[in-house]
């Protein structure tokens, strides 16, 4: 009875309307792909915690970079703190966990009684999927993970819808017909997906638009980001989209200083410049974490060997126009965006993505 009461109380914890709609969307998406698993659900763990009087579920959250990166990790960290309060979780955080440390950290958490171990770094999903079978009574989760295991939850954005919309806006705005794309590498599957989506979006409204793609080789080398940005501007790019970790903000600031448009990535960066930031193509970990934890607490999400793919309709991705652009750009830009958004949501717009294993 105490267990059910605890579960009911946690499940009933209110949220704002956007998280309710997100949760509802997650339920319908998750139920389509989730499979039965032998792993203990957080539901049962919540009950176990209640019965021992601890009242708090131990959850671990790991990130590869630093918590103050103003982007991916900062967003995830902030959301985890809010979720910890909302669902009465005992969350342990560990930052700066690179791919060589990740196996140790994940295993250490799993062996120390943490029932839910979440990794905020998508590339760690492979590591997590290898480790998960060693700890069948622990649930693992990876934000934007593309590989999963029976006792693991991997929720990933489809990686193209929001960037397609960024391409639409960039294609309408560009005068030089040259768009710049900066990513960590130029040949990873996610980089190639971003390239394909940006190009498709731009060319859907401007057949002359083309994309120049460069790589920083680092998520934290700000100088590299600045150099790549300057190089693209020198090559004539007048709209630049950067998705390379800590470099994102530096690139956008460089663009603003050189009076070139930019588009933000991952989180809302529209406030960086009122005049030169067109919008932000968002795939914030906060959205995925909300879906993960709320879905798992109320039992709609269980481990599954198949990653769950979500897009704009499910509330995982979003393209947020900079409100300051409303008065500055032609209405046709926003009309094109609205049309494209509808097409992406109803599935009538598809992009041919690169054929890679991930």
């Amino acid at each position, binding site marked *: 009875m105490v267990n059910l009461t605890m579960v009911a109380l946690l499940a009933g914890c209110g949220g704002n309307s956007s998280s309710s709609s997100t949760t509802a969307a997650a339920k319908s998406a998750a139920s389509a792909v989730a499979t039965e698993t032998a792993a203990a659900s957080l539901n049962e763990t919540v009950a176990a915690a209640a019965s021992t009087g601890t009242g708090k579920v131990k959850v671990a959250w790991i990130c590869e970079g630093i918590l103050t990166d103003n982007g991916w990790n900062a967003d995830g960290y902030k959301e985890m703190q809010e979720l910890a309060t909302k669902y009465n979780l005992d969350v*342990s*955080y560990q930052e700066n966990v*690179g791919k*060589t440390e990740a196996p*140790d950290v994940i*295993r250490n*958490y799993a062996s*120390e009684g943490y029932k839910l171990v979440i990794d905020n770094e998508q*590339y760690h999903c492979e590591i997590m999927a290898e480790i998960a079978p060693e700890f069948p009574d622990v649930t693992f989760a990876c934000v934007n993970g593309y590989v999963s295991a029976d006792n693991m939850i991997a929720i990933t954005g489809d990686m193209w819808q929001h960037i397609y919309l960024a391409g639409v806006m960039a294609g309408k705005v560009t005068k030089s017909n040259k768009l710049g794309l900066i990513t960590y590498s130029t040949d990873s599957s996610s980089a190639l997906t971003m390239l394909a989506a940006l190009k498709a979006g731009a060319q859907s409204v401007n057949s002359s638009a083309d994309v120049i793609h460069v790589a920083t080789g680092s998520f934290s080398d700000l100088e590299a980001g600045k150099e790549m940005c300057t190089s693209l501007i020198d090559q004539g790019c007048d709209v630049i989209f950067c998705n390379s970790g800590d470099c994102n903000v530096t690139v956008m600031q460089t663009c603003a200083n050189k009076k070139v448009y930019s588009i933000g990535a991952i989180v809302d960066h529209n406030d960086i410049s009122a005049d030169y930031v067109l919008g932000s193509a968002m795939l914030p970990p906060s959205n995925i974490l909300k879906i993960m934890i709320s879905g798992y607490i109320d039992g709609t999400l269980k481990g599954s060997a198949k990653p769950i793919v979500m897009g704009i309709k499910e509330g995982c991705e979003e393209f947020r126009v900079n409100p300051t652009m409303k008065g500055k750009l032609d209405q046709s830009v926003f009309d094109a965006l609205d049309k494209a958004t509808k097409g992406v949501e109803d599935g009538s717009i598809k992009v041919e993505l690169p054929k890679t294993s991930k």
Partner: protein
Amino acid sequence: MHREKFKSFLQKRSFLITGGMAILAIFIAMVVGGILIFMIGINPFAAYQSFFRGIFGSVYGFGETMNKFTPLLCCALSFSLAQKSGFFNLGSEGQLYMGALCSVLMASHLSDMPAVPAIFFSVLAGIFGGAALSLVAGILKILFDANELLTTMMLNYIMTYIIALLVSGAMKDPQSAMEQTASVPANTRLPSVLTDSRLHAGLFIALAVLILVWFLHQRTVRGFEMRLSGINPKSAHYAGVNEKRALIIAIIVSGALSGLGGSLELLGNQYKLMDGFSNNFGFDGIGIAVMGQYNPIGILLSAFLFAALRIGTSSMQRSMKVPTPLLYILQGIIIIAVIVSNYYVRRIKDSLVEGRPVG
């Protein structure tokens, strides 16, 4: 009378002075660290409790500590042996990478072989790899009198970037989005030796090598020649020692030890090679050798300290949310304190020797 008895007792057991001072230094450093932890609002006693719990609190934690200990020990032995032979081998990191690379290349072709020979040849490949890379620096020194401080350091960078190129290109696992090789076949992996942990057999290989290296260095003619050449090459030459040969042997064995460390880490722990595979084992090995005063027991204990610091501080962050920068500060303070304590150990030992009656 009692004072003289005590002095005589210590003179015969100088390890007590060394060990005692090291423990005192660590204690003082932890007090300083505790004050810093307290200043940011965390209970230092609870923090240190989680520190020790991470290392000794579970079989699993202890196993992880010893897994970290293994490559650190190998790299420390590598630097120590070379240094005592007159060669400053700063290339342990690169030699470790070369060892891991050769092991993964060998192991990937031995999937049909029984486990024991497969492991043997995979480890051997790592040893040869590390030795070969070190020999490059040795040849440059012998032929061109090239400063090994620079050549070994540069070889570190070369090797690190060769690995980065290979794991993102020719050797990249096509099934993975990460820049890494495929995992080595199961029959080439070092077996686990402790239930409920991932402690692997590489620990015993490393300890056996420690004894072997000590024996080679202290009880053989070749070892004597290496030491003599390290102290004074000209004197060694006039004494009839082929100092160049002695140096080359030291360089090869030194590189082999680092290569062994890379091999054991690959085949026992990570199973695949990737950019950032080493996590500074090679560079930490230098610090361990210095802290251990190039003595096998000292190196053993220092390597354990370094491994324990890695695991314990990680536990502090997980359990008590001690920020990462403060953990690095704590590690640094402890290491500096132990190194400084060596000065006082020498002074105490010197005063005991001065007090010793003549004749």
